C-alpha cells in the first residue's frame, strides 16, 4: 500500500472520527453532570437527521437554514427528553436512569419506525458538499475535509464556553458537586438542561454530517454510531470533553485504517471500536484523559 492511499484513508478516518467525537461529547457531558450514560444519545442523532430531511424536503429550506433549524430543534428534543424521562429520576439509583435511557432509546427508534417506516430515505446532499478534491494525487471528498474542521470549531467553541462563561464554569462545578453548586445560587436544573441542549445539538451536527457522508437514513441508524461514540467517550475518559474528541478520532482512524490495511477484515469493521473499548476497560478504565472519578470533570 502506498503513502498516497494511506494518507487518503487517514483523512477518511479523521472525518469519521470527528463524527464519533461530536456524538461522544454529548455522552461525556451528560455523564459529567448527572452520571448517566444516555444510551438514547445515538437516537437523538437519528432524530436530528430526520428533522434535517424534513427541513430540506418538506419545508424546502436552503441547506444552511435547514441545518441551523435542525441543531436548535434537536437541542430542544434533548432538553425535553431530560425533563420527561430523566429529571423525575434525578435522586433515584443510577441503574434506574440507565434503564430509562435504554427505554427512551427503544421508544425513539420505534416511534420513528412507526412514523417514517423502515425503508431508508435518501438524504439530499447540497452540491457544496458532494465534490472531491485532488491534492497531489490524494483524492478527498469535500465532506471529509469539512467535517473535521467543523468538529474542531465546535470543540473550540465548547471549550471556550466551559472555561469563560458562567454557565460553562457552573457545568464544570456541577460535575464535581451538585449541592454546592446549588448553594452558589445557580439553578442546577437549568444548567443540566443547557448540557442536554449542547450535547444534542452536537449530535444533530454529527447526524447531519453522517447523512451527508452516508446519505441513506433510517430509524435505526443511530444505534451503531451511538455505541461507537460511547466507546470513544470511554476511551477518551468519560466526563472529559477533549477526551471524547480524541477518543472519537482514534476510533475513526483505527476503524478505517484497519479495513484499509487488512481488507479481509472489512466485515468486522464495527468490531474494532468495541475491541478498543475492551482493552481500555482492562488496562486503563479511566480512559486517556480521565482522572480520579471523584475530582470533577471537563
Amino acid at each position, binding site marked *: 500500500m502506498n503513502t498516497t492511499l494511506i494518507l487518503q484513508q487517514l483523512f477518511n478516518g479523521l472525518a469519521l472520527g470527528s463524527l464519533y467525537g461530536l456524538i461522544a461529547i454529548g455522552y461525556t457531558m451528560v455523564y459529567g453532570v448527572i452520571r448517566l450514560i444516555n444510551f438514547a444519545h445515538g437516537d437523538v442523532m437519528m432524530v436530528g437527521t430526520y428533522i434535517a430531511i424534513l427541513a430540506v424536503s418538506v419545508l424546502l429550506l436552503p441547506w444552511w437554514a435547514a441545518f441551523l433549524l435542525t441543531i436548535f430543534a434537536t437541542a430542544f428534543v434533548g432538553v425535553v427528553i431530560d425533563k420527561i424521562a430523566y429529571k423525575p429520576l434525578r435522586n433515584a439509583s443510577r441503574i434506574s436512569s440507565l434503564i430509562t435511557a435504554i427505554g427512551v432509546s427503544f421508544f425513539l427508534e420505534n416511534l420513528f419506525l412507526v412514523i417514517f417506516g423502515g425503508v431508508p430515505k435518501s438524504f439530499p446532499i447540497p452540491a457544496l458538499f458532494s465534490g472531491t478534491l485532488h491534492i497531489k494525487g490524494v483524492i478527498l471528498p469535500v465532506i471529509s475535509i469539512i467535517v473535521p474542521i467543523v468538529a474542531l470549531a465546535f470543540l473550540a467553541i465548547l471549550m471556550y464556553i466551559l472555561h469563560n462563561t*458562567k454557565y460553562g*464554569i*457552573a457545568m*464544570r*462545578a456541577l*460535575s*464535581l*458537586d451538585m*449541592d*454546592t*453548586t*446549588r*448553594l*452558589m*445560587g*445557580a*439553578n*442546577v436544573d437549568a444548567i443540566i438542561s443547557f448540557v442536554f441542549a449542547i450535547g444534542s445539538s452536537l449530535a444533530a451536527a454529527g447526524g447531519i454530517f453522517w447523512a451527508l457522508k452516508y446519505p441513506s437514513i433510517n430509524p435505526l441508524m443511530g444505534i451503531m454510531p451511538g455505541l461507537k461514540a460511547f466507546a470513544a467517550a470511554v476511551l477518551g475518559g468519560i466526563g472529559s470533553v477533549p477526551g471524547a474528541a480524541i477518543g472519537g478520532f482514534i476510533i475513526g482512524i483505527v476503524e478505517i485504517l484497519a479495513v484499509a490495511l487488512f481488507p479481509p477484515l472489512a466485515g468486522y469493521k464495527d468490531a474494532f471500536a468495541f475491541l478498543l473499548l475492551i482493552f481500555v476497560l482492562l488496562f486503563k478504565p479511566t480512559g486517556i484523559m480521565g482522572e480520579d472519578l471523584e*475530582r*470533577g*470533570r*471537563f
Partner: protein
Amino acid sequence: MLKVKDLDVYYGVIHAVKGISFNVPEGKIVTLIGANGAGKSSTLKAIAGLVKSKGNIKFLGHDIRGKQAHKISNMGISLVPEGRHVFVNLTILENLRMGGFNKKHSELEPLYEKAFELFPILKERANQKAGTLSGGEQQMLALARALMSEPSLLMLDEPSLGLAPKIVAEVFDIVKMLNSKGMTVLLVEQNAAQALKIAHYAYVLENGAITLEDEAKALLNNEQVRKSYLGEM
C-alpha cells in the same frame, strides 16, 4: 433576621432534627454547638434548602422553607458547607466566580478585590486549581466564595474541622471581623470553646433537640457545658 420554629428533619426513618426553634437576630453571631450527629449540619442544610424539612423557617419575614436552594441563596443566605467543598477542579478565580454566580459582570471586579484584600493568599494563586490549596487555604477560599454573593446571613458549618489551631484562630478572627462590620452569622461548631468565645448567643443541640440556650458568655461558665463540651473534668 432568621426565625426557625419547630423544625423537623427526617432522613428516611431517622429523625435527625426534632422540632427545634431558634432565632438569629441581625448583626449577631449565633452558634449551635453539640456533639457529632446532634443535628447541627442537618439544621443548616434545611435552612439552605438542601434537605427537606418540616416546620417554619422565616428569613427577613419571608417563609423560605421548601424553597429551592438556589432561590434561598439568592435571597441572601450563604452557607459555607462542612468540609469546605471548594470546587477542586476549578481555579480559585473560577470558584469565586461561582460564588458570585448571580452578580453582573460589572459587579464582580470590586468583589474580587474585596476577597483578595481579606485573603491575600488567594490573590497569589488566583489561577491555580483549588485542589492544590492546603486545608486552611481551602477554608479561606470557601469563606471568600460564600461572601461573593454579598449575603446578609452567613452560615458556617464546622469551619474549624481538620484545621491546625493557628488556622482555626485565623478563621475565627475573620468571622469576628466580618461580624463587626455588620455581618449576621450562624455558626455551627463542635469546637465549642472557640465558638462560644466569638458568639453572642448559643444553643446546645443534643440528639436533634435543643437542651440549653443562653448568652454565649454565660454558657462558657455553665458547669454542664464545661463538662460536656469544653473538655473539663
